[in-house]
């Protein structure tokens, strides 16, 4: 899995602790602790390997390398790397979970409505007056990256 270069990201360093609402219009790299909410619509969020985030997260793309306790809404893509510990629900268009990641929660893949609309428009153009087929666009589905003595007691027969 390729991690984007973080040089141009705004950084929250290891020793920084933030409590409250965090919002912005640039990419953000969190390697410290954040508690509250993170709102980065249209931008990317990376939770670094030392990052500890207890917050709901809304961003275009989210990469978790550290710890996240909260729901993720990623309009494009969510990614959990092998060191990730994520607890919460994920709503996104695409997901990648590396082998070794710990995840507890729901994964809900939302279809890309923009792509679908464009495909329908294209289909309408090529088919003239014919109505566009309802599901002509292939929806983006989830994808996960792959490399992603016992003492015994017999139970009596009278049931448990």
């Amino acid at each position, binding site marked *: 899995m390729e991690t984007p270069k973080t040089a141009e990201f705004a950084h929250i360093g290891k020793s920084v602790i933030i409590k409250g609402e965090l919002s912005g219009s640039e990419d953000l790299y969190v390697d410290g602790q954040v508690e509250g909410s993170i709102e980065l619509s249209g931008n990317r969020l990376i939770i670094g390997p030392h990052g500890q985030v207890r917050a709901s997260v809304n961003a275009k793309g989210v990469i978790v390398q550290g710890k996240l306790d909260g729901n993720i809404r990623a309009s494009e893509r969510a990614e959990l790397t*092998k060191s990730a510990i994520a607890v919460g629900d994920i709503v996104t268009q695409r997901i990648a979970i590396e082998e070794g990641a710990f995840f507890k929660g729901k*994964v809900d893949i939302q279809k890309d409505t923009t792509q679908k609309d464009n495909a329908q428009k294209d289909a309408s153009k090529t088919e003239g007056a014919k109505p566009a087929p309802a599901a002509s666009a292939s929806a983006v589905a989830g994808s996960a990256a792959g490399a992603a003595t016992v003492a*015994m007691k017999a139970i009596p027969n009278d049931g448990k």
Partner: protein
Amino acid sequence: MKIFGSSDSTAQDSAAAQRPKLTRRSSSLAQLIKTLDSEETLCILDLGSTSPANIRYCTERGHKIYSDDLLISSTDPSLVSKDEAGKPTLDSKRFLEENLVYPGAEFDIVLCWNLPDYLDESLVKPVVGRLWSLLKPGGMLLAFFHTQEAGPDAPCYRYHIVGGDVLEMTHIARGDGKKGAPPSKFRLQRVFNNRNIENLFRDFASIKFFLARDNIREVLVVR
């Protein structure tokens, strides 16, 4: 501020990653796959260790999937208390208050894998009862049980759906779930015979047994 318990999981991750993957055929999975492949927008609950393969398989087909490693959750030390005789016991009531709670969700399929064989005795019946209430009528539950011939050293596996009737298995240990403890074996708690299994799932509408060659009894239960 300490948000999470501290743990250094790097060594554990690499140990887990180095364990070999085995494959096995599963007749019960083959039946389940027919449903997974033919129906849309199912709601699935996977109670095994986090499996990217299972999440991918389900989401690629438009299903919603919940992942909840119940065996790891059951090893939370704070659940352990001592009874009057000083014997350690698990607080099953608190366990169910904190786990298997999905507001508004009803499941079409629950993947238990070999969870019942490794779960603490006090949790097995309450967990199966809760799963019954989480399943939709007609919903299916898949579980694997060791036969007596499996022996006391039967390893605990994480199961990954490959497709068709093929499962990939990775040996898992305590500590893989990053609770800070070093990896150690999960202990096989008991062996269920057919009658035990029937009793365990007596509230369900039907139960189907599949005997596999590797000393595993596969069970597909319908609510």
